[in-house]
């Protein structure tokens, strides 16, 4: 079958080559199309209820599809440190209309929304609205109250609202005890680093999203560094009071008996001592969330 083998070869080669070529073109087309068609339509959809009706009973699958789109949308922009995330909220609203029990959409979605640009969409009010919607649909899922409190505390700095959120959450049967503890802390402490640390640690431990986990880790590092640098600046002030001049290097402080060794930040790099006694981190890119010791 000589002719047959020749044909098989030619066709086989054609199939492989053309498919490869088509894949290249496709990725170009997709890059151009990007967020366009499939996502922009979200802005024009009449309402979640209509979409649900149109989905012919496959709303759960459609919710998953929209949730995936939301994650991709956020992730691809996040990498580029984008400034605008306009489609995020509509995508999340459609997702939760299609499947009001898709908890992960509320939990992770609200964090995507609430964080400041460029880490998130910078829309904490929309985030609150989303969580409240989730709570209405899932009243027994007390962890949503945690998210609510977190947003009020972290991004809106509304400590009263945060306290109320934790309070309500603690009342849901099955809620863990620390919810009540958090409510109390909100009431007393206001803007407190240890509270913030605790909240971020909880997020870090419980989240399923890599973006959020990454973000939480960064927040924790910055909180730690801020706290370290607070203490280090206390030491430089103590040195000043004793020597009437600021230390030039860390060794000065060591010789003065105020330090035991060169202090390093959580990434292992030494802190920088400035001549006016203030302390800074070596690489500020590792610590994007510093509150008090910014460069």
């Amino acid at each position: 079958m000589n002719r047959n083998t020749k044909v098989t070869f030619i066709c086989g080669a054609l199939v492989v080559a053309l498919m490869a070529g088509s894949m290249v073109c496709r990725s170009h087309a997709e890059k151009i199309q990007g967020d366009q068609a499939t996502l922009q339509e979200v802005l024009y959809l009449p309402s979640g209820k209509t979409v649900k009706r149109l989905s012919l009973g496959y709303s759960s699958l459609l919710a998953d599809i929209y949730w995936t789109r939301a994650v991709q949308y956020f992730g691809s922009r996040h990498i580029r440190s984008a400034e605008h995330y306009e489609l995020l909220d509509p995508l999340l609203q459609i997702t939760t209309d299609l499947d009001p029990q898709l908890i992960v959409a509320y939990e992770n979605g609200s964090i995507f929304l609430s964080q400041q640009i460029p880490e998130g969409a910078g829309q904490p009010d929309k985030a609150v609205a989303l969580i409240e919607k989730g709570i209405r649909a899932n009243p027994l899922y007390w962890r949503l109250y945690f998210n609510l409190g977190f947003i009020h505390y972290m991004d809106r700095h509304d400590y009263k609202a945060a306290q109320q959120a934790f309070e309500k959450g603690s009342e849901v049967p099955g809620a863990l005890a620390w919810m009540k503890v958090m409510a109390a802390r909100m009431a007393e402490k206001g803007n407190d680093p240890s509270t913030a640390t605790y909240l971020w640690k909880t997020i870090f431990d419980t989240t399923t999203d890599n973006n959020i986990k990454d973000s939480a880790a960064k927040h924790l590092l910055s909180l730690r560094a801020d706290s370290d640098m607070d203490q280090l600046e206390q030491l430089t002030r103590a040195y000043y009071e004793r020597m009437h001049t600021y230390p030039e290097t860390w060794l000065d402080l060591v010789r003065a008996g105020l330090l035991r060794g060169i202090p390093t930040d959580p990434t292992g790099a030494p802190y920088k001592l400035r001549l006016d006694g203030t302390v800074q981190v070596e690489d500020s890119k590792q610590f994007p969330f510093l509150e008090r010791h910014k460069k």
Partner: protein
Amino acid sequence: MTSRLSAITWNTFREAVRDRVLYNLVLFVLLLVASAPLFSQISIGLEKLMLVNVGLTSISLFGVIIAIFLGIGMVSKEIEKKTLYTILSRPVRRWEFIAGKYLGLLLTLVVNAALMTVGFYAALLIFVHSLGRADALLLVAVYFIVLQFMMMVALTLLFSTFSSPIFSAIFAFALFVIGTFGEDLKNFAAMSQGATKWLATGAAYVLPNFASLNVIGQVAHEQGVSAHLVFFNTVYALLYSVAITAAAVLIFERRNLK
């Protein structure tokens, strides 16, 4: 070779037309005409938008359905009816047969879509009373729909070369649905890990992607379509269709036809 190819193409087209496939146009027109008054009832100010959406989506869906219905029997019917025996006893190469069938079916769909587009513009005229430059954009959407047909015909033909009509129909329809969510399949793949990720990504690329060919939403809102997109989509659809047709030829050339 060209005379044989064109003979088969024309014959395929003629058979489809005489099989009253174009009657679906009547259904299309009825659909448009009947739904028009509905639109103004549903939402004021959005009539044109809905008309465009319904019209273009119908052109796309009707075409795909015809592509599947006619395509699944392309090869299997000829084998069953033994018409293929008399064809192959002539100097017709097997690949010419497949190519001719493909072109004939594609021609049928293009003619069908063209006629529908005319009817669609007529409906638009009646509604809006005047057509602006933005309405030329609709032709881009129709062009992309034709690109979609190119790919669907190739796929249905592929199945027809080795599988029975019923299974071919199921596979083809499934691929159409999957293709519509092509982007999402890629997203799913991106979210998985390890071996699954490679497999899923590979599958996502081999399977057709109709999502970037769908600009109905855009043109409905009178947004432009970039020339780059037109270029890449055209080349994509072309390469993909030829690849799949080559696969169909491959199978058909080696097959013992009962």
